């Protein structure tokens, strides 16, 4: 555990001390090294599931895939940010890299925390670097509003969580995740219902659930590419991960209290997918598609069956990789035309054919084509939702249909069709961009071969 954490913290100093000529190369190389070391976390040795354990940090099959995804994303973020940062003064570049590294450190601490308060503190701590990345390096004036929405939505959900955790600590005596599942809480009174809501609201806002999702399109659209990547891929999964950790404590109330949130989650799939079909802004489409996929995950976590948990983690990992890929693709368009409007970048298959392949693969994965892990996650979730209530298949099936249609719409709008006359001098795709997209897509394709790695502890 420390093998990964200390090098990540040391990267802080690396980013301040390397000479200007080698800054990006060295940071990318080191973070790739750390990412490859982190693959060790896939091998878990113990019976109980908690491996690499020390007093404060530990990894179990739920957090291992998310941690590896986090470590994997850091070099990808740095690769992606190279273009829009190279014009800035060197101090600002170093500050930006330092923000990314600090975010990485907090995320590693959050996912490997064994005690809920530590998870809470690092969960909140990830907000500050993300806020700074969005509001300082975003590109439009709306980024201030986006940062405010982001911070306040998340905090309004998470302050009750803090109080709920403190109450839990008073009642049980410890908040360690290792033993939390064994505590028997008698949840019957009306105040306990408030406690139940307080526990889950923070994560539902973060996921986001359909009713409280307004921060997400704003934050994703206004953030620079690294911000969007880390937001879509990992920060949403913090919400899912937290929910999965804490929901083991919340039975038997969950059976009745989950209904409003289930309704919001499943209805949100259809609503946000439909909004996707009417978007003009490419990044906004990807943001709403994130809400839609996360709605499936939220619904799955709330019903708490083994298949649904496995499906939730699988979809989280798959969605993290694919969503990040989509944002990178949208960014390649943005860097050439400085506009996110969908209509301005039509028909680029003729000009950039290899990029069209990546667009194709990514959109196929987004619509959950077999045999991708996206499909595996969605199938597991839809089946377990069908088991919970037969009627959900109507809504989730319809949702899958609309997901397919907007993914195809995205592909056809950007790649096929008439090339506009104004795209006269866009430069060809850099090798760096190809590398970036491949590094996203190769894990996605490889994971199909051994999906047990991302199934978590239930299967």
């Amino acid at each position, binding site marked *: 555990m420390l093998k990964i954490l200390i090098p990540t913290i040391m990267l802080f100093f690396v980013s301040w001390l390397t000479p200007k000529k080698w800054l990006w190369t060295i940071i990318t190389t080191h973070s790739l090294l750390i990412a490859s070391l982190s693959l060790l976390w896939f091998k878990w040795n113990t019976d109980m599931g908690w491996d690499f354990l020390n007093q404060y940090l530990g990894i179990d099959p739920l957090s291992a895939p998310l941690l590896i995804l986090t470590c994997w994303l850091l070099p990808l973020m740095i690769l992606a940010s190279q273009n829009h940062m190279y014009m800035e003064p060197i101090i600002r570049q170093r500050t930006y890299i330092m923000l990314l590294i600090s975010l990485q450190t907090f995320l590693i601490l959050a996912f490997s925390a064994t005690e809920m308060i530590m998870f809470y503190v690092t969960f909140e*701590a990830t907000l500050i670097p993300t806020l700074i990345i969005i*509001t300082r390096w975003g590109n439009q004036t709306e980024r201030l509003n986006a940062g405010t929405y982001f911070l306040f939505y998340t905090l309004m959900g998470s302050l009750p969580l803090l109080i709920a955790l403190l109450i839990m600590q008073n009642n049980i005596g410890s908040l360690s995740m290792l033993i939390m599942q064994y505590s028997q809480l008698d949840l019957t009174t009306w105040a306990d219902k408030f406690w139940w809501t307080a526990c889950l609201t923070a994560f539902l806002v973060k996921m986001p659930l359909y009713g409280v999702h307004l921060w997400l399109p704003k934050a994703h659209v206004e953030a620079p590419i690294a911000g969007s990547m880390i937001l879509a891929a990992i920060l949403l999964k913090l919400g899912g991960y937290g929910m999965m950790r804490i929901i083991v404590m919340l039975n038997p109330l969950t059976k009745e209290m989950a209904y409003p949130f289930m309704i919001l989650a499943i209805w949100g799939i259809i609503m946000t997918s439909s909004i996707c079909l009417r978007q003009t802004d490419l990044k906004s489409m990807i943001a709403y598609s994130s809400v839609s996929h996360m709605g499936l995950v939220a619904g799955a976590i709330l019903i708490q069956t083994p298949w649904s948990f496995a499906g939730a983690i699988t979809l989280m990992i798959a969605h993290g990789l694919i969503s990040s890929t989509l944002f990178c693709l949208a960014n390649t368009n943005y860097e050439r035309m400085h506009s996110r409007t969908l209509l301005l970048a039509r028909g680029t298959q003729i000009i950039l054919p290899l990029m069209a392949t990546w667009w194709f693969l990514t959109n196929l994965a987004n619509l959950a084509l077999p045999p991708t892990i996206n499909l595996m996650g969605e199938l597991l979730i839809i089946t377990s939702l069908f088991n919970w209530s037969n009627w959900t298949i109507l809504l989730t099936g319809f949702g899958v249909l609309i997901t397919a249609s907007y993914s195809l719409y995205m592909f056809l709008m950007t790649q096929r069709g008439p090339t506009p006359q104004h795209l006269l001098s866009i430069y060809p795709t850099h090798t760096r961009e190809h590398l970036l997209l491949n590094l996203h897509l190769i894990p996605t394709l490889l994971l199909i071969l051994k999906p047990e790695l991302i199934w978590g502890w239930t299967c």
Partner: protein
Amino acid sequence: TIFISSLGLGTTLTFIGSHWLLVWMGLEINTLAIIPLMMYQHHPRAVEATTKYFLTQATASTLLLFASMTNAWTSGEWNLLEMSNPTSATLITIALALKIGLAPMHFWLPEVLQGLNLTTGLILTTWQKLAPFAILLQLYPLLNPNLLLFLGISSALIGGWGGLNQTQLRKILAYSSIAHLGWMITILHYSPNLTQLNLILYIIMTLTTFLLFKMFNSTKINSITISTIKSPLLTTITLMTLLSLGGLPPLTGFMPKWLILQELTKQNLAIPATIMALTTLLSLFFYLRLCYATTLTMSPNPIHSMSTWRTKSSQPNLTLLIASSISILL
């Protein structure tokens, strides 16, 4: 300098006093010593602020004296710790709340702070709070917890809401002071150690903020927006300090809030704890707006040259920065 030493004398007298008259004398010496410091500039607004300050503090001290005399009349005890009359305990709480500027007795604080220059404002918000808190910390078992809770929650609410419409930095700091004092007073009855911790951390953070504003020589949001040009490093420090005042983890400002919430939930006061936690979101909003104005955006400004450094107050700032921003992760 005689005034600064008198300030020190006054607070020290209040600290060491166990007879009510000595304590009252220390508070009066404090008030009288700061009056000429506030009047230093002979600006009409400074004069007005001084007058308001003198009137409120004199009222508070008189109320304190009256309460202690009532206690002495009914019980015959002038000792600070023997406060057996509940009426005088309540009166003392209200008097001290007026002295430090807790809601609903806070109305004097924004205007007074606005009339002062930054250094005197610094003394007002940090040093002047020490003496009344010394009394409160000694008296804590005898004070009415419901009253303290009411003062605390209303201060947090009013501190949050009042600061939302301000553009003058000193008024913003006044409302932030009200909100933080509200947090401190809430936990007084249950754990005075936490009140002390919160007070010390608040003093350090406010000291840093005032010194930063003094470095930038700015008193309005308009003038702090060009701070990135004057010194980018200090602007980043301003960002961290403001977020720390807002109580965001992992900065230091989160620690007192967390511990206070923990203590409140242990005492089965979860609902007031939730209310206080949510009201800090209000004050976080104006801290965040200040952050936007200073660090996170660059306002259109034709001055792009490096101006000369003023190293006047940089030394204490450095040590305080470290205390104010460095994260404490469990």
